[in-house]
């Protein structure tokens, strides 16, 4: 005879009681019909959100100075993308989880050079523009020290940037072709051509929007719209939806950690929260194996409500 002790949170007693008729197919059919009707009702009543995508065209027309400032940021290396690190470039080591430099170890697999990919290459695709051709030739003919010096001089005046008569003006001298480059890129953006140039960089077909999305996210236009929709990370935006629709409410715990210390002030918050959520998911997964945790249901006795008929029989 087995004398293994009965563990109430691991073993289940053998059921020797009654059985009742159960029509599993009927139950499934009813469930599909009820949920189907509910889905049709909710879809008819509330619909679903579809806020139009912004374009670089709408951005640069709505706020040419923000666009030009971002474009300059891509040249002087001050934007989020330019300073990102892995997987786009080596400008930063990326976040680390204690000694684990995960982003850095994963390497640069989606290379993005903001000057080349966001500014020079798109402009090089513009036909029949002698001024631009000259400016690009001057840029490409200069060494990097010269390029840096031009951009740096232009950046010093960028705080006083103005927009008038379709031109970006910055009071700065010894700036080489930079004003022409910034103005031509702004014109290109306002015409809609930059949207296309950034996605077609890899040929005729594409399904990859990495470059235009990174560029757009470097400006303030997208974030300002998101803030109005209450979508910023600091607004628990991860679980929110545009309009007044419910969003990914199941991400509540994930977004919660970002709001509290130490994560809210940590420069490694993303990787720390991911690690914590990974750990918590593991706890949930392994719950049946964890002494203490697996005893909670037996001790809180909610099961008495569920099986009250059984216990009163």
């Amino acid at each position, binding site marked *: 005879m087995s004398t293994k002790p009965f563990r109430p949170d691991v073993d289940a007693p053998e059921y020797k009681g*009654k*059985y*009742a*008729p159960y029509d599993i197919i009927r139950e499934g059919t009813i469930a599909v019909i009820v949920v189907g009707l509910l889905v049709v009702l909710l*879809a*008819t*009543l*509330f*619909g*679903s*959100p579809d*806020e139009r995508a912004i374009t670089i065209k709408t951005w640069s027309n709505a706020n040419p100075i923000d666009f030009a400032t971002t474009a300059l940021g891509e040249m002087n290396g001050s934007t989020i993308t330019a300073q990102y690190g892995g997987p786009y470039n080596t400008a930063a080591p990326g976040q680390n989880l204690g000694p684990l430099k995960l982003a850095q170890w994963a390497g640069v697999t989606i290379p993005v050079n903001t000057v080349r990919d966001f500014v020079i290459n798109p402009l090089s695709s513009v036909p029949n523009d002698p001024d631009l051709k000259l400016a690009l030739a001057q840029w490409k003919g200069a060494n990097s020290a010269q390029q840096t010096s031009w951009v740096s001089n232009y950046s010093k005046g960028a705080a006083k940037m103005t927009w008038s008569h379709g031109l970006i003006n910055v009071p700065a001298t010894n700036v080489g072709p930079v004003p022409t480059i910034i103005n031509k890129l702004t014109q290109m953006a306002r015409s809609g051509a930059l949207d296309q140039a950034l996605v077609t960089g890899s040929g005729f077909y594409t399904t990859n929007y990495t470059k235009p999305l990174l560029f757009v996210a470097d400006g303030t236009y997208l974030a300002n719209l998101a803030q*109005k*929709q*209450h979508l910023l990370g600091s*607004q*628990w935006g991860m*679980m*929110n*939806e*545009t*309009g*007044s*629709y*419910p*969003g990914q*409410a199941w991400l*509540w715990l994930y977004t*919660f950690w970002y*709001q*509290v210390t130490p994560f809210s002030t940590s420069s490694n918050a993303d990787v720390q929260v991911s690690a914590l959520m990974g750990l918590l998911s593991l706890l949930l997964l392994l719950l049946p194996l964890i002494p203490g945790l697996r005893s909670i249901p037996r001790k809180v006795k*909610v099961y008495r*409500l*569920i099986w009250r*008929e059984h216990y009163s029989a």
Partner: protein
Amino acid sequence: MAFLWSLAAFIPLDNYGHYIHWGVINISVANFIVVVLMIMTFVAALLLPFPGRNRRKGNQ
């Protein structure tokens, strides 16, 4: 065309949402309703009598 028009939502929720701030908690009213409904559904599922118990007893 009337048929297509009728597919538009009766109460589209496209206007800016409302939000509940409570200390560190910051939740949209829509998500809050979903969470409250979830908890209410759970409690109701525990408390409401499940139909058919008499029939079941009778059958055995």
